[in-house]
């Protein structure tokens, strides 16, 4: 995936915040995935319809992190979620 991709969250995928983390569950396939607070923030911004690049722009203001490291983390997470059908593209 790249920074211009705009992930969407399929209707059958839902998330619940528990403590400071978030668990995502795919109701159709029964797969689940745990997100730490940073991952949960990325997920939340995906749900707002932002591209991966826009997600990075937003989070650069919120976290003490370099753009390169943040972009790598955002793309890594998006790849993993896509692989498990927890997001889709296009």
């Amino acid at each position, binding site marked *: 995936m790249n920074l211009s991709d705009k992930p969407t969250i399929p209707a*059958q995928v*839902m998330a*619940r*915040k*528990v*403590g400071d*983390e*978030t*668990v995502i*569950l795919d*109701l*159709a396939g*029964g797969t*689940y995935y*745990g*997100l730490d607070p940073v991952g949960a923030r990325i997920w939340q911004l995906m749900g707002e319809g932002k591209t991966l690049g826009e997600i990075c722009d937003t989070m650069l203001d919120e976290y003490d992190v370099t753009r390169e490291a943040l972009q790598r983390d955002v793309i890594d997470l998006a790849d993993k979620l896509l692989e498990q059908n927890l997001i889709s593209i296009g």
Partner: protein
Amino acid sequence: MSIVYSVAPPVPQQPIDQVPFHEWSLPDGTLWSLFFRRATGYLLRFPDFADFNISYDGHEVSAYPVPGVSQQTVDHLYLNQVLPLALGRQGKLVFHASAVEIGSAAVAFMGESGKGKSTLAASFATSGFRFLTDDGLMLEANGSGYQVMPSHPSIRLWLDSKTALIAPDTPTAPALEFTSKSRFLAGESIPFCDTPRPLRRVYFLGDGSTLAVTFQRMKPAAALIDLIKHSFLLDFEEPEMLAAHFDELSSLASLPIYFRLDYPRRYEDLAAVRQAIIEHATHESEPA
């Protein structure tokens, strides 16, 4: 719990012209049960033993035994396999877990088959701690917490656990056709707690690859994932019910009561394991 359970006269199993939506196999690969959706509910087939119809709302279960299969086997399949699924259809929280009473509260042991749930429950019971269930743990919300509902008063054990834990004169239930596990009835030497108890701890059992008894507090997200894994859910493809279940489990996972527990699997160490659990369950302070 309100379930109408009936057993029909024995009838040979007929082929089903439908692909099962789910299958359970035993660790050795043997097909154990097949799940089919029907117009009015679900059909669970245990090949060569029995078919069970479960109504869509989980309030009615009908058993159709294969000729020659004992009533005990049919009832046991119902109690251990079918009833928890039917209760799940009613929206109840049911898990693969055993539970015992420590102090005036319930302590649950959750884990896959073979992780030691029944052995731990039997070990506590034979030491004077009443057990609430040896599998099929049902929880009900109760004010700010949950309570463990008593299950049926018997414990199933493999031969090695039986030899190590159970006095030779302890009464057993009639043997079942599908397992070499023995089933022990609650009584003086295996006391049973027949009233609900507040849930104080849930321990997820490790695989025994440790040299000492270890406890590790779990974060709510990890607890939620493990609670999902150990739930009795009949139909994972029904979004509305699953969403409600997910909500309920999320509330449950938010309680500060979850730990990973591991210990060497040696019968001679069980007394020390019990003592460590008792101390942990009764003295471990709640997090801020």
